[in-house]
């Protein structure tokens, strides 16, 4: 690092170059051209070949997939019309959207108010809560699934509230498990907001709630979107809790696909085409969400993960 200060004068001459000029490019260059191209092609192929395969297999016949065809010998889009009933994807997607969507909205709302208090006020136990938020992100689901299941079935035994098998049980579970990360994302986001606006609003007579709703909330949409999307993904991607706590009519898409895949074992040729079509349909919303909000999400992820 000592080179930094030693080269100040040299740096000044280089700064004359316009950004984007050839010289500038040479300075920033990290890898020789051929190696760069090799890395890009290798990793690009590593990612794209399986992704392309999902699509190709989804329009292929089951025999074609079983025989290891990459390019389908006969193309059919039938799989896409069958999966809604055969895999149960119609029910599954409805439940997934319902559960993951409401998880996202409620978790974003809760995490912004929680983060607001954690960032803008000092009180005893604040650091413990912050540390707890980080620690709870890493509690393994397999550790929690049995006790949560027992707790929920006790709710029906002792309180007469049926939780297991309903979307409510999943919603509450996902909401809780999404909270630590969502709140942490909001904490890192709110820290970056200038305090001066809030102080000005307070001088003008705004209450705490007023500051939160009139000042903080309108400035925080990027953070809210990120924490909401991560909560959505948690619900959308979960198999563990959904496989234990749902009945066929409350199944999420993840479980529907997993059960369909597992039930294809043995006997005739599995419905590979439908499996791939269903996988693609389950992945599509997630991929689209990412592409739309990519910039925010990458920032939010590294913020949530690194800091």
């Amino acid at each position: 690092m000592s080179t930094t200060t030693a080269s100040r004068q040299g740096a000044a001459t280089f700064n004359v170059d316009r950004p984007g000029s050839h010289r500038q490019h040479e300075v920033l260059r990290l890898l020789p051209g051929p190696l760069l191209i090799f890395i890009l092609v290798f990793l690009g192929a590593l990612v794209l070949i399986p992704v392309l395969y999902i699509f190709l297999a989804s329009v292929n016949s089951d025999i074609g997939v079983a025989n290891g065809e990459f390019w389908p010998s006969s193309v059919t889009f039938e799989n896409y019309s069958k999966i809604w009933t055969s895999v149960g994807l119609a029910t599954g997607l409805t439940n997934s959207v319902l559960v993951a969507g409401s998880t996202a909205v409620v978790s974003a709302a809760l995490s912004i108010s929680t983060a607001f208090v954690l960032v803008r006020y000092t009180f005893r136990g604040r650091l413990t809560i912050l540390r707890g938020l980080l620690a709870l992100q890493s509690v393994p689901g397999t550790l929690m699934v049995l006790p949560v299941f027992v707790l929920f079935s006790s709710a029906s035994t002792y309180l007469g509230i049926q939780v297991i098998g309903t979307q409510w049980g999943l919603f509450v579970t996902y909401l809780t498990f999404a909270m630590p990360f969502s709140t942490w994302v909001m904490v890192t986001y709110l820290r970056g907001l200038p305090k001066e606006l809030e102080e000005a609003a307070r001088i003008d007579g705004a209450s705490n709630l007023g500051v939160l709703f009139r000042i903080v909330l309108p400035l925080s949409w990027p953070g809210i979107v990120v924490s909401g999307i991560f909560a959505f993904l948690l619900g959308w991607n979960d198999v563990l809790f959904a496989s234990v706590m749902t009945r066929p009519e409350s199944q999420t898409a993840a479980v529907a696909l997993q059960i369909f895949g597992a039930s294809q074992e043995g006997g005739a040729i599995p419905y590979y085409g439908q499996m791939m079509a269903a996988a693609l349909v389950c992945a599509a919303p997630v991929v689209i969400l990412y592409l739309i909000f990519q910039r925010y999400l990458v920032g939010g992820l590294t913020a949530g993960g690194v800091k």
Partner: protein
Amino acid sequence: MSTDTPHEVRPAAESAAGRAPRNTNTTGHLPGRKDGPRRKGMSERNRPLWMLIPGGVLMIIIIVVPLLLGIYMSTLNLDQYTLRKWVSAPFIGLDNFVEAVTNSPLLHAVWLSVSYSLLAMVVTLPLGIAAAVATQNAFKGRAVIRSIFLIPYVLPSFVVATVWRTMLQPGGIVDEALGTVGIHVGLWLNGPQTFWTLVLVQIWASWPFIYLLALSGLQSVDHEVHEASALDGALWWNKLRYVVFPYLKGPLALAFLIGMLHHINNFTLPYVLFGVPAPADVEVLPILTYVTSFQSFRFGLSAAMAFISLVLIAIPLFVYLRAVKLDDAETPGAKK
């Protein structure tokens, strides 16, 4: 918690003065906390701590209570007959733990989990760094490449597992492709090679995470550093090794910890890839815990296993929590 609903309005200056005397005695002994007067214009009476209640209640009911319940259950002889009335299940002390350690595949599962996580990490690190270094400089189409690199990370685990499960079927596309170059691997989804299958698929799914964190590290490299090494005429390899990589140490150490936690906790990938009961060579901790609960119905034993895996996880988690600065407003990304 909150006694007053804070609708009263207080001038900022007055309240700042009001809370000045107590700014050191809250949690001042903890690292990362900055002492000294802060310009937070809030009085103590005017803190809306009630906003913490909804999230707090949820986390207590759904995380803390079940956690304690799980620890309690690990001391019970709990099976499908006693589960309904688990409160009155026979108490057997530490027997479940003794059985888990001496007479169950638990130690094998711990070994599998740790070695698989490490192996996957050892391969994903160079892949992720290479990807980050390669996409650091602007070139035409870089945005597209960056989006493509993120795809495996974006795809849900159950989709990744379903797809690879199909591709790795005997006689499937992978066998076919390897067959054309004369490689015959044998069964991927059954038998002793399943361990390597799991490692490979995990690598495919998780290298973009390393890539993301390495990228954030590269972005902190000052422009002047590039200029300095250009002036010195440093070769690209030396520049990477001695100038750029030191910047990556922090983010990558963190990526290593978080990645290890992800791998060890990963249930969905092995579960969907191999199904349950899983082949013995991929019976990693989450799978073993799950199978013991929901296939063998040995709930007490499973709770004991879960508790032991929590202890295992606590090691990297503890390092992680020590490494993270909780209160860094000034030095983002810093890790000391």
